């Protein structure tokens, strides 16, 4: 019996051992499966667990003006953040101490953490772009502030605020269309890119290459150590053709003059205008001013709702660059086109004398502006007609040239097409009416016909004619330089971050028009007389440098305040080095509104206003170590 029990026990002990052996084999099999069969996969997953890449933002390229003054650069911004997890269990003393330093209530900090906290280890950004003094004070109080960190990132900075705002453009979250274009270049949906202006046109140049730090993190995502680092590469720098000092001056002059005009009362809607300063020898744009403007700096880190609302609710659209986009009726500044066409086509000669009575020979209802004063321009030649801006002479020669030829010459002088400036938003083309244009754009058969009387409007820059200030500047530059049409440009060079030159942009000649020398001479003569004896003689009285130019007064409708004032000129008249075009929207007659702006801009250009600017030397001198190409 005992033996039987013992036998059974021994048997069951053996069974137990076999059972355990089977179980252990199963466990070993599982171990084999996890470590040998699935080992590589789990290794990858353990690496994915522990390795993070922390991006190192690349500083955006700096934009310099022609004198190497930075007009868009970067600054380091300090942000005070809190890592909720690192706070002590009773964070109140930390909030009190921090609140004391930054000047906010401790409750405010507690609320911010409560509302903004996403993950316990993810920093809650409390105060952005704080002053270095606050950073110093926080660093000094480090021991009292567990969980408080200072983050430092480069952000865009525009030292001149509103100056050249539309030209430089602003940064913002990449748009869907931009992403479509830039996606293949490695951009992603939450990138901050140039949204307009040069910031967008040269986005891929200015953008650097983001670096990254490979860090090992623990379970709470806290970086434990840096495993590898790839430094970021700053973006390339731009050297503009703009003269930021002159640009600032021009904007100030423009703004002041618009305010004066409004105050004078006759033109209460004079809120918008533009100034363009162009070098007729190469097409470089020195000034591109458009009022009203905006401060791209206010877009850094996200534009505030109030500022954006202010911009889009402004009826004069500060986001619009009027130099390139402002298609407006040119009025008499356009008369040079008619004059060059008539002289080139032998429809008149410089010495032909026109007998004017203030009324057109064929259509007496078409009158000259001077008739309203009960006078007329009497016997004048074409240069004198430019001097006095006589409509009658231009009606007559316009009729002789005819719309087809006038259209052709308009296009030759660059109107009705983009100048070729590389800018965003895209340039407007303007409009030069023609028979084809009428046919294409009107419905009724009687509207599609070109009536001879309409040629008269085109001849004096009225009717359907629309031009941008930049087109006007390019045309006057060609008159000044003898027929060379340069593509205007804003960027003369791209510099690598190291200072080496990556690319230099030379002047591009779009077209050369061989004006008959005597035609050009007659027009230049007329433009010079405008300053000396004509419509701009009062404004330019005592101006020491010879200027040649033309006033324009574009009438838009019945209302007497609906008048654009233009002035287009070049100087010195005998050896032109600068073209200035001023357009004052609803600012009244060109001689009263635009010409004074042009004069002051020329004064600034030629340094005739130095008396009131003792700090000028200082401003101009900041070339750094980078050499001009």
């Amino acid at each position, binding site marked *: 019996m005992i033996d039987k029990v013992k036998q059974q*026990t021994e048997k069951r002990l053996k*069974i137990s051992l076999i059972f*355990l052996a089977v179980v252990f084999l199963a466990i070993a099999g599982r171990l084999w499966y*996890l470590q040998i069969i699935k080992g590589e996969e789990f290794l990858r997953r353990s690496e994915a667990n522990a390795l993070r890449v922390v991006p190192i933002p690349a500083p955006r390229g700096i934009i310099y003006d022609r004198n190497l003054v930075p007009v868009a650069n970067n600054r380091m911004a300090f942000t005070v953040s809190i890592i909720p997890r690192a706070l002590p269990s009773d964070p109140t003393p930390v909030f009190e101490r921090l609140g004391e330093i930054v000047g906010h209530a401790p409750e405010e900090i507690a609320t911010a953490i409560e509302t903004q906290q996403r993950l316990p280890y993810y920093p809650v950004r409390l105060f952005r772009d704080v002053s270095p003094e606050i950073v110093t004070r926080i660093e000094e109080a480090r021991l009292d502030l567990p969980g408080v960190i200072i983050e430092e990132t480069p952000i865009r900075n525009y030292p001149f605020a509103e100056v050249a705002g539309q030209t430089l453009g602003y940064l913002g979250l990449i748009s869907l269309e931009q992403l479509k274009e830039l996606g293949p270049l490695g951009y992603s949906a939450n990138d901050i890119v140039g949204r307009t202006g040069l910031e967008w046109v040269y986005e891929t140049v200015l953008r650097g290459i983001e670096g990254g730090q490979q860090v090992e993190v623990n379970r709470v995502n806290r970086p434990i150590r840096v495993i590898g680092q790839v430094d970021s590469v700053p973006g390339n720098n731009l050297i503009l053709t703009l003269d930021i000092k002159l640009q600032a001056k021009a904007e100030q002059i423009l703004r002041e003059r618009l305010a004066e005009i409004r105050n004078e009362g006759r033109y209460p809607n004079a809120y918008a205008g533009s100034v363009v300063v162009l070098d007729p020898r190469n097409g470089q744009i020195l000034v591109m001013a458009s009022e009203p403007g905006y401060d791209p700096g206010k877009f850094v880190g996200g534009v505030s709702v109030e500022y954006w609302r202010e911009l889009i609710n402004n009826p004069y659209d500060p986001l619009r660059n009027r130099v390139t986009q402002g298609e407006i009726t040119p009025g008499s500044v356009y008369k040079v086109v008619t004059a060059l066409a008539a002289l080139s086509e032998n429809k008149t000669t410089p010495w032909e004398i026109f007998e004017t009575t203030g009324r057109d020979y064929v259509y007496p209802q078409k009158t000259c502006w001077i008739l309203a004063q009960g006078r007329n321009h009497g016997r004048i030649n074409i240069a004198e007609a430019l001097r006095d801006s006589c409509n009658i002479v231009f009606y007559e020669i316009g009729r002789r040239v005819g719309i087809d030829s006038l259209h052709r010459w308009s296009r030759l002088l660059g109107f009705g097409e983009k100048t070729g400036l590389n800018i965003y938003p895209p340039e407007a083309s303007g409009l030069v009416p023609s028979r084809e244009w009428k046919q294409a754009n009107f419905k009724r058969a009687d509207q599609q016909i070109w009536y001879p009387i309409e040629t008269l409007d085109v001849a004096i820059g009225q009717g359907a004619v629309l031009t941008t200030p930049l087109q006007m500047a390019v045309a006057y530059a060609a008159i000044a330089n003898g027929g060379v049409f340069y593509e205007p440009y804003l960027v003369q060079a791209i510099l690598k971050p190291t200072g080496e030159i990556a690319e230099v942009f030379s002047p591009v000649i779009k077209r050369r028009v061989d004006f008959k020398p005597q035609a050009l001479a007659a027009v230049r003569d007329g433009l010079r007389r405008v300053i000396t004896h004509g419509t701009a003689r009062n404004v330019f009285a005592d101006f020491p440098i010879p200027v040649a130019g033309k006033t324009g007064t574009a009438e838009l409708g019945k209302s007497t305040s609906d008048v654009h004032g233009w002035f287009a000129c070049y100087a010195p008249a005998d050896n032109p080095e600068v073209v200035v075009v001023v357009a004052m929207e609803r600012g009244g007659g060109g001689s009263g509104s635009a010409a004074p702006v042009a004069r002051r801009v020329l004064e600034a250009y030629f340094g005739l206003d130095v008396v009131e600017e003792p700090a000028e030397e200082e401003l101009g001198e900041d070339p750094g170590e980078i050499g001009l190409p």
Partner: protein
Amino acid sequence: MAQARMLTKDYDLILIGVVLALVALGALAVYSATHTRLLEAGADPTFYLKRQVFWIFVGLLAFVGTIFVDYDVIGKISQTIYLAMLGLLVLVLLVGKLVSGAQAWFSIGGIASFQPSELAKIAVIQYLANYLAERDLSSFKSLIPPFVIVLVPIGLILLQPDLGTAMVFAGILLGMLFVAGANPKHLGLIIAVALAISPLIYFFALQPYQQKRIMVLLNPYSDPIGAGYNVIQSMIAIGSGRLWGKGLFAGSQTQLNFVPAHHTDFIFSVIGEEFGFMGGLFVLIAYFIILRRGLMVAYTAKDEYGMLIAVGVVSMLATHIVINIGMNLGIMPVTGIPLPFLSYGGSSLLTNMIGIGLLVNIYARRHRLRFQG
């Protein structure tokens, strides 16, 4: 020389050697698992190591003490031990401190914590062995008293609540009943009934966190950042160790604290990650040697009482090992029971050292049978 021969003959040196090797490996793994976290917190990196070494010495003292007390003496006071243990389990429910949701600990002067349910296993083993020895278990009715002996402490432990320890008691009971001669059909029936009513237990007796752990076993990815997190991270740690491991102190899952409680319940993941398949296999073989030696002790024991104590100790260790490693490998629910000799923790180490002490004790006294018989 003669004494040395005595020692090798009387004392199971292979068993003792393997246990010491495991205990040493455990201390190393505990240090690997904890030192970075402690350093990071600015604390003494050897904090846990020192405590573990302290408990190793306490365990060795208990081990030696257990060897030198004849287990027959224990048999005489076995009911007293059992009842005292029940008293402790009641007391811990009343005054014990709460650790991760379970009221299972006594705080000793605020320095060390002690878990009476660990030592309760030894108390149950020896009392059950005493009861089952020389008893006829062929009838189903005869199985009721042993079930009551075990179900009383299980009930008290489930009140804490501690599902894992309760499962260990079930393992001890089944192992001992089987070897003591219970009808396998009866045992099979009991297991079948337990499985059949387990859904009822699942829905009515288990705490939500315990329900979750069982759900997670079925699919760890059902709750990857909650209850399934531990299992997934443990599997990643072990799997990523591959054949030879990432090396001591070089396991990213371990050193960067991706596996929670990896110095206690998930210590096997540390070994798996840092020492690889070879390390894991070494541990499995070591355990198998211990269990096999334990069954050998049972086989050679001078009486059925000693034999059943050995079987109880083997059942206890085997249940711990299988449930814990199975949990680390994602094939057992997360029940929070330690891995013998390796996991950080004094109560567990003490209990297991006493268990090994009992095995050595029984083995050393195996010959008396021959002298008497």
